[in-house]
């Protein structure tokens, strides 16, 4: 095996890992705070991608800037979903929650199909053509930007959760709803913000990748499954776990593509998942089983 090829695999794996981490952080935040699995997570990402496409084709906004607007739209969509639907089933049995989210996922995916058609598309960005050579390795600027922004957003989310009053209340509600209510937390508001922030994370992840990852409405499902994978591997509800898990899974997939073949990269991440479930079902950073 050519060492340059392997090194290139490591670099692109880590660069894409930032995006995976951001997706998984959004999912784990929603799960950690209200114990609801967002089956529509990948479809929200696809909507982030199409919004960035709309911004780029209609208004000429480069996705490297437009992702902010996409994240804001997805925040509103997420908060609205929480207020309108998820709020009614937060205390329902989990199969009901899963079914409701599956319904939302079906609607979002097929609404995208109706609106944009099934053909894969991508967004033109001034960054995609720009590559930098570091010795024998090349770094694609669009991917590097996506990585840097994803890292910054995840760090920002960490600061928000640990340094602001609302963030602390969110962690309190995740830990003990009753206790959070006792100290005067508006749990419904916290839930809506958490869902909105989770959706904004994955929407930003979508907008950032839209310039180098061809997308179609059908991508939502595999993006959801990839996020679930990462979150279980990292430990459900753990933000650090989701972040590390994203980098790890992306690295494993990228090396899998180098050593086997690109279409088998998912087999690598699923095998990782099964190993984790066999030997450490709480995940890398999980403390206890839900």
């Amino acid at each position, binding site marked *: 095996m050519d060492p340059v090829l392997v090194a290139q695999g490591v670099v692109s794996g880590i660069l894409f890992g930032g995006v995976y981490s951001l997706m998984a952080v959004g999912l784990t935040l929603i*799960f950690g705070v209200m114990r609801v*699995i967002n089956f529509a997570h990948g479809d929200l990402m696809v909507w982030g991608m199409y919004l960035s496409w709309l911004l780029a084709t209609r208004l000429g906004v480069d996705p490297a800037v437009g992702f902010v607007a996409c994240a804001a739209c997805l925040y509103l969509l997420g908060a609205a979903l929480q207020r309108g*639907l998820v709020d*009614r*089933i937060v205390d*329902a049995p*989990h*199969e*009901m929650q*899963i*079914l*409701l989210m*599956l*319904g*939302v*996922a*079906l*609607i979002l*995916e*097929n*609404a995208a*199909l*109706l609106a944009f058609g*099934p053909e894969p598309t991508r967004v033109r960005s001034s960054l995609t053509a720009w590559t930098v050579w570091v010795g024998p390795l090349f770094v694609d600027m669009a991917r590097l930007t996506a990585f840097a922004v994803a890292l910054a957003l995840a760090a920002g989310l960490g600061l928000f959760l640990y340094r602001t009053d609302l963030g602390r209340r969110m962690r309190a509600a995740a830990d003990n709803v009753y206790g959070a209510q006792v100290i005067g937390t508006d749990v419904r508001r916290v839930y809506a913000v958490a869902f909105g922030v989770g959706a904004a994370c994955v929407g930003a992840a979508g907008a950032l990748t839209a310039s180098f990852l061809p997308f179609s*409405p059908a991508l939502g*499902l*595999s993006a959801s*499954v990839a996020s*679930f*994978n990462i979150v*279980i591997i990292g430990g*459900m509800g753990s933000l650090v776990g989701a972040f590390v898990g994203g980098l790890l899974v992306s690295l494993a997939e990228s090396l899998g593509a180098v050593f086997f*073949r690109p*279409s*088998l990269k*998912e*087999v690598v991440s*699923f*095998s990782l*998942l*099964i190993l984790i*479930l*066999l030997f450490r*079902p709480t995940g890398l950073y999980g403390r206890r*089983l*839900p």
Partner: protein
Amino acid sequence: MTWIGLGALAVLLALPAVASPYLTTVCTLIFFYGYLGQAWNLVGGYAGQLSAGHAAFVGVGGYTATMLSLEAGLTPWIGMWVGGALAAALGGGIGYLGFRFGLRGFYFVLLTVAFAELLRVITSNVDAVGGALGLYITFTGDPWQFQFQDTRVYYYVALALMVGATLVAWLLERRRFGAYLAAVREDESAAEALGVNTFRVKLLAMVLSSFLTGIGGTFYAFYLFSLQPGTMFGIPLSVEIIIRPIVGGAGTVAGPILGSFILTPLAEVSRLYFGQGGWHGAHLIVYGLLLIGVVLFLPEGAYPRLARALRRRGR
């Protein structure tokens, strides 16, 4: 209730003699999805373990019987049992992984989804089983190869499958095992405290359910004459499998059948209607709305509601 069931069965047995070919086809699909829903119901309804990856068993069953038929010339009438056995082994493996640590709810859902997706990706990459293009079965019309000139045969085979699975569910419900399943579903810790081996009960339900689903895979493959990784293992098929029993009433004998009678014609008509208008995917939006509606307004499913209404009128 039994009399209504037997009367309906008599009508369905006589129906192909008078019905149009289109109606026969829709009924065949109703029975087939009713069968898959009933098979899922054993683990998803009665035992309350929500498997969202049941397509994995359809795929394993279908691919096994087809490969045995294409490569070894083995008749699908035998191959379907081999496929069912392999699907049951897979179900046992997934169940073992999931139930060993008492993984409940979320973990089990994601585990089953992950296995179905894993198998989909593997099949798309193994050229010996057709790879991403899939397998095609040439039509010979040989009943020994599970191919029939007369589409009414498929109707009766599907009806037999649905009735058979329903009998299994009905018998289980009346046995000690059925009571164990209900105990596990309602309160697992309490069941365990009373001495029920919940791990074994859940595992058995999973094995039985995946076995039946695997047998259904053979029918699916030989009814469609082609197998693609996406259609055989994909999440859309898993959703088709779980949505009917849940709409009809999970954990009841009649639920999956009622659900299939409600949803299959709706799906076929809306697919036809929206498909002609070029509105692909619109029927799945209808599904999504229906799922949300059921969760919010009819969480126990249609059958329990209907049964209560009938009882009230009978009084």
